[in-house]
């Protein structure tokens, strides 16, 4: 065990890497691990939390993340492969989805491009998102933090068709309850509309694709509507 608490694999990896995101929960690096382009996600201690509680929570997030990634991959949902997990420093070594962009950046870039081709490309993307989320909920995976930053689009792979990857499963869990799935979609709706202004119609298209391809979507959408209403009431009172 190295002096600073990081394993040899982590230390070697960090020698030649690039920090790509410093978040509130984790640092994300890009580098090479055993010869492969790899993303290292390191969850660091939160100093304001009690150390034992913090350790427990951080461990749980790491475990939830890798479990969900495997579960999704088994079901044919595109998600990065897990190469190695270091539970002592809460590090996950993941397949780097080389050449991908976040859906967030992709939408922004489309919105900056010439008006003409915008709608078609955005509609196509919304449909794709709806289908992937339907598949995920069919597997009873609740993502827990659906945003357009937690989806990657890999354009120009083997096929013409771009591949949509789901990432950042630290808050995920397994549940068959329509309520949990409804809240999952509500979280996405909130994030989507605040990140990408004036996209209400686009989000409706996403929901339409979700509904059309998911047998049990009816009860989820009912719950979504309930949660929306609760949200609105709360903001009217507050």
């Amino acid at each position: 065990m190295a002096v600073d608490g990081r394993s040899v694999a982590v230390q070697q990896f960090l020698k030649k890497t690039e920090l790509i995101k410093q978040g509130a929960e984790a640092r994300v690096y890009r580098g090479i691990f055993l010869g492969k382009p790899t993303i290292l996600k390191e969850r660091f201690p939160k100093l304001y939390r009690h150390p034992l509680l913090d350790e427990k929570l951080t461990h749980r997030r790491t475990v939830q993340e890798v479990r969900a990634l495997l579960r999704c991959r088994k079901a044919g949902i595109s998600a990065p492969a897990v190469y190695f997990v270091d539970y002592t420093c809460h590090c996950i070594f993941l397949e780097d989805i080389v050449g991908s962009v976040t859906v967030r950046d992709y939408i922004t870039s489309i919105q900056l491009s010439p008006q003409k081709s915008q709608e078609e490309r955005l509609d196509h993307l919304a449909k794709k998102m709806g289908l992937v989320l339907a598949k995920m909920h069919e597997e009873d995976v609740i993502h827990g933090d659906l945003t357009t930053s937690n989806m990657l689009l890999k354009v120009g792979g083997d096929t013409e068709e771009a591949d949509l990857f789901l990432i950042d499963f630290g808050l995920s869990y397994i549940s068959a309850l329509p309520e949990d799935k409804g809240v999952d979609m509500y979280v996405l709706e909130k994030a989507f509309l605040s990140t990408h202004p004036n996209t209400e119609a686009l989000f409706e298209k996403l929901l339409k694709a979700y509904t059309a391809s998911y047998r049990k979507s009816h009860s989820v959408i009912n719950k979504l509507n309930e949660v929306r209403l609760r949200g609105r009431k709360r903001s009217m009172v507050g």
Partner: protein
Amino acid sequence: MEGKIDGALINPFMIVHPFEVLVAANKAVHLHRIGKMKTRRMYSEIIYNLSPTNNISDAFKRFGTSDSDTAVLIVLVHPTDETRHMTEVMAKVDGQQIPVEDVSKMVDTAQIKKLYRTTPQEDSCLLDAVVCRMAVKDVI
């Protein structure tokens, strides 16, 4: 083969790609350092790490070698600049040496799919399916 070989002796027909072995070895070295190996020796730990389950004797049955085997993959862990041990091991093996990349040509795909219980959706990259299960098996 003559005498005992100090290394991990692996059944190459169960290996999809050398990357898988690197992953297993890296994990063994890591757990060795922090004193959390599941087996008693680094070389047995490498074999154990290749397996999708937490059953040690199962791992040896699938990934270990037996006297009747016609091929073996030998894994050694050593400091980068210290290759003496490797020369020693090579002297003990009576057989034809092949490039490590060639293990991919020997793989028994049907056996791999069965053992790791991969889904048809994972067929496009069996290596990722295998490595994922190896990486996550402690918490499944």
